[in-house]
């Protein structure tokens, strides 16, 4: 395969090199390198304030890095926009906005519609298809303020689906949703991955990492470990990120790695 010479690390879905991000002079991410191969479902985990959301926002050009560079499939985000889908945190918007679920999903197509063009029948059908994928077809005309948290999250996921991207970024999609929604989301993300897409998820629940994901990035200002989840999801690695909170993780890790000595988790 010939590779255009202006591409940088084109074999990686996401390539982050020497990235530092700071707010008000305080580093939020410090000199990190992240490489994610295409076709994996990756969990980004780490304690509160570890910079998980910041990493995604920086990759998507929403936060300006202090130093470093990022490429997606070999090129910067600004030229790869159409290949990227994004699901922000549900709490980042005011759900009392007067509109329907279908309308929100259609918003995922505004970027490619371009200026002055109104969404028409094709966009509507595309949005209805995406709502069907998240099992919300019957709620297409429901006011978004009347949706449950899980339903709102699925609307956001459908909005990213219509983007037909190659790389999807999801910021805590499983936070505070019901079991039905979590199952729907995970099944859908697996489907995307199996279709060759790359799915990157900020995830808070260490208990489910092993089951849901095949790639893992442990973050706490720095990248503490990254790679296939089977190699990375060890108590030693998690201890580096979570420190004294590790006691809470004992039970989890015993389930995952029964042979790991418990002494490791002593306070």
């Amino acid at each position: 395969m010939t590779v255009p010479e202006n591409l940088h690390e084109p074999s990686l879905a996401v390539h982050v090199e020497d990235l530092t991000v700071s707010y008000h002079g305080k580093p939020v991410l410090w000199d990190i390198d992240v490489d994610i191969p295409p076709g994996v479902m990756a969990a980004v985990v780490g304690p509160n304030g570890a910079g998980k959301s910041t990493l995604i926002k920086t990759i998507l050009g929403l936060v300006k890095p202090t130093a470093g560079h990022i490429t997606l499939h070999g090129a910067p985000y600004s030229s790869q926009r159409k290949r990227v889908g994004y699901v922000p945190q549900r709490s980042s918007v005011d759900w009392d906005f007067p509109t329907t679920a279908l309308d929100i999903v259609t918003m995922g197509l505004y970027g490619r519609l371009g200026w002055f063009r109104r969404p028409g029948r094709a966009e509507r059908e595309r949005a209805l298809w995406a709502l069907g994928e998240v099992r919300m077809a019957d709620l297409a005309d429901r006011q978004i303020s009347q949706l449950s948290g899980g339903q709102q999250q699925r609307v956001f996921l459908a909005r990213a689906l219509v983007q037909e991207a190659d790389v999807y970024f999801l910021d805590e999609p499983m936070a505070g949703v019901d079991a039905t929604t979590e199952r729907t989301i995970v099944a859908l993300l697996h489907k995307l991955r199996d279709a060759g897409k790359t799915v990157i998820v900020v995830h808070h629940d260490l208990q489910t990492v092993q089951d849901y994901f095949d790639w893992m990035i442990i973050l706490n200002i720095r990248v503490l470990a990254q790679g296939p989840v089977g190699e990375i999801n060890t108590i030693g690695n998690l201890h580096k990120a979570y420190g004294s909170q590790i006691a809470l993780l004992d039970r989890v890790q015993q389930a995952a790695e029964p042979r790991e000595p418990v002494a490791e988790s002593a306070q």
Partner: protein
Amino acid sequence: MSGLLAFLGDHTIQNVVIGATLLGIVSGVLGSFAVLRQQSLLGDTLAHAALPGICLGFIIAGARQIESILAGAFVTAVLAALVMLALTRNSRLKTDAGLGIALSIFFAIGVVLLTYIQGTGNASQGGLDAFLFGQAAAILRSDLVIMGGITLLSLALVAGFWKEFKLVTFDPVFAATQGLPVALLETLLTVIVAFAVVIGLQMVGVVLMAAMVIAPAVAARQWSRRLEQMVVLAAVFGVVSGLVGALISATGRGLSTGPLVILAATVLVIVSILFAPQRGVIWEEIKRGRDRRELGDNQVLTTLQGLARHHDDPAYPVEQGMLDTYHGLATRRALTRLARRGLVHPVRHMPDEGPHWELTPAGHAAARQVLVDIDAGGR
């Protein structure tokens, strides 16, 4: 009838009607975006910041010349918006603090300039006071042409950038990932609020203009399911309150227009907050009462089922006093409602005991369904 015709034929009245209509449309449409972006107070800052511009326009033109006054008002209003944006983006000040600072500084300068002009004894300065609280009767036909032009421009911008404005208002972060120039669009939305302010200066005045941006939009939100509806309805509410206030003012004894317009808009807000379906206070209260009753009914139903199961008798008659004790409150009304739905029926057990109730087969089915629903949890 002829009185009404004469009234509508009056030149001043015509001007007032047209002016109020224009103001209502623009402030309703743009106010909808400002309210949804949680920038309701932006209108307040822009309106107050228009005062120094009004005075500068007057000083430069040397007379009460509408073009230079409105241009001055627009310039200082936009300047205040930019000061606010610069303050919030380059320091740790939050938006409310930025708005407050910009408002007070610009309004203070405006008041200084206004008192300076009044001190010079310029013969035509009398008209400037009207910009504080509005004076509909002072509007001239030539003013309306300018106001109409600004209205058309604002509406054209909103129509042209409709989906972009909608997305930036709902989810600016996602808009940015779609490649939309979010900062530019937000600045544009801010600038066209300044248009609304400029149009409202003569009708409502700088002090109360904010309410004209907020009130019609808030009232319209109560009745709307879509942004399109909200914007149109806000325009209608804006026109209605503008007309009511302006006409009372124009026919009354020199009452300031602004306060009357705002009072009319306030009535619409109160009615909307109380009576709107789905979102109104009264509707919600009714719904809450209904939910509470339904919950109580379901509790009684499952208690009956539990007792029937405990006694291993589907038709076990439960004494009402026992249910009252178990639930800690009178269950007679709940039982009556359940009986009406055919889920329980009263039975006579022993002549010396109180009323008894037993579940019907439909009641058993309903109780099972309640438990299934509880298990499934709120989706």
